[in-house]
């Protein structure tokens, strides 16, 4: 089983040199800490930054410089600031190569739900609907099961959708899964110490298991 840092570390390996990457709130934000050396990546924050750097050193926070999670951040050399129309323009035009975001539920055909629990929690979708509708390359970072032990990888999402047929890859504490075009989760990798049966048990949607499921290197 991976902890959230393990999930972030595994996802970081998906990032290739030269990519522009948008990181969502939560585990995705952690991914920035694990980008391998020698990989040149530019982080986009949808409130209007390219070239986002780490959190500022204490005492140097600037109220005018935050990321999409409203956290104080810094800029790296070569960065740029722009308005929200241009920010979502570059997302919509698929100039951003990779989007990493969290989810409450993902279905076997790649639908995702992450913005609303009717009657309970309505925070809004922020930029998530734009990101999932536009990005060519989306990785979901999520827990395989919820707090009540119920699978979050489903045949169909039960919560209001954020986007349809858009998720291609999921990294959980138990596994790396790919969403196949015909509509099933393909088990690509197991987390260290996790068995195929455990993953099968934790996955409510259709799970396609190859003969050999390699253990992931994190």
């Amino acid at each position: 089983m991976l902890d959230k840092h393990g999930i972030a570390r595994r996802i970081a390996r998906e990032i290739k040199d030269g990519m522009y990457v948008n990181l969502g709130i939560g585990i995705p934000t952690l991914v920035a800490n694990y980008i391998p050396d020698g990989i040149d990546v530019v982080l986009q924050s949808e409130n209007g930054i390219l070239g986002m750097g780490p959190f500022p050193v204490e005492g140097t926070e600037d109220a005018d410089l935050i990321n999409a999670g409203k956290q104080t951040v810094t800029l790296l050399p070569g960065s740029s600031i722009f308005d929200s129309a241009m920010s979502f323009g570059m997302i919509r035009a698929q100039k951003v190569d990779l989007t990493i975001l969290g989810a409450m539920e993902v279905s076997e055909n790649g639908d995702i739900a992450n913005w609303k629990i009717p009657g309970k929690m309505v925070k809004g979708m922020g930029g998530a609907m734009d990101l999932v509708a536009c990005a060519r390359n989306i990785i979901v970072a999520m827990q395989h099961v919820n707090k009540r032990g119920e699978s979050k990888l489903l045949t169909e999402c039960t919560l209001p959708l954020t986007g349809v047929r858009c998720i291609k890859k999921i990294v959980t504490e138990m596994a790396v899964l790919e969403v196949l075009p015909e509509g099933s989760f393909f088990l690509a990798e197991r987390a260290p110490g996790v068995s195929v049966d455990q993953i099968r048990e934790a996955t409510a949607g259709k799970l396609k298991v190859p003969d050999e499921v390699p253990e992931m290197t994190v």
Partner: protein
Amino acid sequence: MNKVVKNAEEAIRDIADNMTIALGGFGLCGIPEKCIEALVKKDVKGLTCISNNAGVDDFGLGMLLQKKQIRKMVSSYVGENAEFERQMLSGELEVDLIPQGTLATRLLAGGYGMPAIYTPAGVGTEIAEGKEVRKFKFNGMEKEYLLEHAFEPAFSIVKAWKGDSAGNLVYRLTARNFSPLIAMAGKVTIAEVEELVPDGELDPDQIHTPGIFVHRIFEGKDYEKRIEQRTVSPKNA
């Protein structure tokens, strides 16, 4: 062309009950603090507010919510605000949640005189209900897009870093966010700035909002610029 007014009170003098206004800012970053205070004081009611967020309980648009001056919020993200959530769940407050990019682009459309735009955001979700869906090919891929209409708020209110009497505005860092779009979309646009400089001091190449979009401008004093999530790295270097 001199667009300078004395203060926030004068700038918002004709914002009346039940109007639709758009306000710049992302979270608490770059919000028009002075005009929001003046709206609270003026106690206009029944406002429809187009703004990406709704502030926090005691700052930003949260102050208007506390006084129940807002009838409807048009936003993309409204977390971090308990009073908001209470009013929304109880039905006191109408809420129109819109994808962030759609919000930005509908404001751009208002500023650029495009009555409607197409975006794939929200296709297949409840956001798409009742909307025209149309297929287009872009970047080698055919997919579905929603038709979304321009925003045309009666008033737009933004906060900038610097401005001049001609109404030209320069924003600082991510305090820019939606503000240039909101400034363009308003039928009447009000700008409050941290520093009002003489005409000719701003570099014409570096204006984010040309003065043609701004009708009233004033310098605000003592900005609080509250930080919503102070995140820092340890001090050892």
